C-alpha cells in the first residue's frame, strides 16, 4: 500500500468489533436542557472490504431505571417485540487522513433511512496477541421521528420533553480476522 493509499482508504480485509472494548450509544436532549445518554450492550459490527455493517439487539438497551427501559422497549419507542434489531450497512468508507465519512443505511423500527456518520480512524496497531487492531469513532445525528419514534410530551414552559434529534455514537475497536 502506498503512503497516499494509507491515508485515503481504510484497511482492506475483515475486521470485527471487540464487544468489550467497543460501545454503541445514543444521546437525546431531555427537557431541553441535558443530553440523556443510553446505549445498546449487545451488538456486532464488522468492517469487511472497507464497508461497515452492524446490528444491535434492541432489548439490550440500557438505562438506570427499569421502568424507563420498559417504556423505551414499548411501542411508544422502539417496539422491541416487533422490531428486535436495529441495523446499519455502509457503502465504502471515505477517508481523508484520520477523518472518515461513512455513508450508509440505518434500519430502526422497520424504517430504513440514509445516515451519514463522521469520525476518525486510528491504527492499525499490533496487539499483544499477535493480531492487529484499528479504531473507528463515529457520530451521526438522526431525526428519530423519521423512524416512527415520535413519542413526546409538552413542557409547561413550552417546548417538548425530548428532542427529535438523537446523536448516535459508535466507538469500535476492530480486530483483524485471521
Amino acid at each position, binding site marked *: 500500500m502506498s503512503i497516499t493509499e494509507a491515508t485515503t482508504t481504510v484497511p482492506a480485509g475483515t475486521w470485527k468489533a471487540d464487544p468489550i472494548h467497543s460501545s454503541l450509544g445514543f444521546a437525546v436532549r431531555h427537557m431541553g436542557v441535558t443530553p440523556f445518554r443510553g446505549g445498546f450492550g449487545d451488538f456486532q459490527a464488522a468492517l469487511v472490504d472497507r464497508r461497515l455493517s452492524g446490528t444491535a439487539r434492541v432489548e439490550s438497551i440500557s438505562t438506570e431505571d427499569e421502568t424507563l427501559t*420498559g417504556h423505551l*422497549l*414499548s411501542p411508544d419507542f422502539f417496539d422491541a417485540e416487533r422490531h428486535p434489531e436495529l441495523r446499519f450497512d455502509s457503502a465504502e468508507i471515505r477517508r481523508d487522513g484520520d477523518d472518515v465519512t461513512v455513508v450508509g443505511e440505518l434500519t430502526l423500527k422497520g424504517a430504513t433511512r440514509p445516515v451519514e456518520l463522521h469520525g476518525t480512524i486510528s491504527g492499525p496497531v499490533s496487539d499483544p496477541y499477535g493480531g492487529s487492531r484499528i479504531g473507528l469513532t463515529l457520530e451521526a445525528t438522526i431525526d428519530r421521528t423519521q423512524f416512527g419514534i415520535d413519542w413526546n410530551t409538552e413542557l409547561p414552559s413550552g417546548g417538548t420533553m425530548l428532542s427529535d434529534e438523537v446523536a448516535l455514537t459508535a466507538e469500535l475497536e476492530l480486530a483483524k480476522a485471521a
Partner: protein
Amino acid sequence: MRVLAISGSLRRDSYNTKLLRAAEELLPPTVEVEYFEELESVPPYNEDRDTDEAPLGAAYLRDRIAAADALLIATPEYNASIPGQLKNAVDWASRPVRAGVLWGRPVVVVGASTGMYGAVWAQAELRKSLSVAGARVVDAEVVVGRAHQRFDEEGRLVDQEMRDELTEALGALMAEASTRLIAA
C-alpha cells in the same frame, strides 16, 4: 379471539358500561367478550403486597387480562382524569415491569361522559399510562359526550356517528390483536 371489557365506572347504570355493551354488539360474533366486573375488589396498589401471593382481587384482574387477546376499556372522567379504581388496576397490571400482563397487549380506550367532552382528558391520561406500561394502545378514539342523550331507555347506543366511531376503533383493535396472534 377473546376481548376483556373493563368499565372504569362502578355505577350500576354506567354509560361507560353501556358503551362496552354497544361494542360487544358491534364486534363480530366470533369474538368472545368477557366483562371484568370486579374492579371494586382490586385493592390499592401496594408493592409490599405485590408478592407471589398477591391479593385475590389483583390476582384475578391479572388472570383475566392474561387470558384476553385484547382489552377494551371505557373510562369516565373524574376531576379531569382517570378514575382512581381504573388507574389502580393499570398499576397492578403493569407490574412487574416488562413482564406484567399489559406488556404488548393490544388495548383500545374509549370513554363517555354526560358533559360535552366525552372524557377526553381521562382517555388521554389512560392511553399514556397504558403506553408507559408497554401495552399496544391502538390509535383510535371514541368520545361520547352528552352520554345521557346517546343511549335509549334500554341502554342501547343509538347515535349512529358514535356507533361508526366505535366500529372503527374496534376494527383497529381487532387488527392489532390479529397481528399479535399471527406473530405468536
